[in-house]
């Protein structure tokens, strides 16, 4: 059932990416709509960035998006590598390595996201 769990969460991650990447596109590439862009101008203008960094929802959204994207991408990589026909032992080691790499990258990304939020609080 391990593979069932991996695949199920791979599909759930895809749906999460679809929704949250859509939100990201609206916020970052359609600033005229004004979603989390209170100041007029580009989404990367200082006032808009500072406004977003103070919102917990945005920080939470990006952490979830990071987790979903990392899981979805690393599972895809695992599938591609497994199709090359490695040994059973390699498959098990590779799965553990991907979990470790994924968790490290998630930790770094989540720290950066929370650090940006704390900067916003100072501002």
């Amino acid at each position, binding site marked *: *059932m391990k593979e069932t769990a991996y695949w199920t969460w791979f599909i759930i991650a895809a749906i999460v990416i679809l929704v949250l990447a859509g939100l990201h596109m609206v916020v970052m590439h359609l600033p005229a709509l004004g979603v989390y862009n209170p100041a007029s101008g580009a989404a990367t203008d200082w006032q808009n960035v500072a406004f977003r960094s103070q919102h917990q929802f945005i920080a939470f959204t990006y952490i979830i998006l990071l987790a979903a994207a990392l899981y979805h991408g690393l599972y895809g990589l695992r599938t591609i590598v497994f*199709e090359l026909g490695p040994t059973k032992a390699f498959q098990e080691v590779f799965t553990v390595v991907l979990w470790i790499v994924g968790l490290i990258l998630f930790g770094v990304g989540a720290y950066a996201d929370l650090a940006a939020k704390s900067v916003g609080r100072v501002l």
Partner: protein
Amino acid sequence: METKTQKKYNITVYVRRFDPDKDAAPRQQQYTIQIEKGLTVLDALNLIKQTQDPTVGFRFSCRMGVCGSCGMLINGKPGLACNTQVLDVTESALTLAPLPNFSIIRDLVADLVPMFGVLTGVQPYIQRSDVEEMENPTREYFQTPHQLEEFLQFTYCIKCGSCMAACPTMATDKEYLGPMPLTQAYRYNTDSRDDAADARREIVSSCHAIFNCHYAAECSNVCPKGVDPARAIQLMKKDLVLRYFGLRKKKCAHVHEGPSQSDYKPKIEAPPFTVDQ
């Protein structure tokens, strides 16, 4: 009385030849035959064998799309030689090759033994938890029409290997179980008389199994019996995911009561063995 003469077509047939004892690599041999409407690819091969080259190797048995022996690559598409008419495929050049994703025994004969080995692994037969009932059934196992319809389509598989040859995952992943065994696993898992679904689920949800399907759906596209293995695979995935979330409970097989007006057949004694056990 006027006799109807059918139009004749000159067809160039390219047959991939390979004898592992003599050839280092497969080669292509060309034949020219004259055919008319109604001639199948198998007829064309028999014509070549009878009139031009008796050494061409191909396998066939029933000649009516039932046994699955004559599966081969016909103008780049896997199919049965016996139920493919030459003029449905071409009016000029016909290219024949053994089924890909299998090793070649000789010429157009692919080695299907590994496929049957994988099929055996998914336990494609009805198993019941009550051994006594399985060994000495007390009565017939009735099914409702709906219970039958749930898996009927998947019973039409003749194990010709066309779906395995068309599968892109089979081409890249040598350990992949393949569409035919996965379809048969689903067929028996869905059967209301069966009790071994959990064991089969363990097999089909392992590495190099059902979740490696890329859903190219070529298996369903080439199936000569309309079995639709891609559908079986997707239904199996759905079943596994629902069970993962606990949304589908275990269903125990049982002997269904038949219609009140039905007669039970008397138990038929098995004939004696014809060979020593």
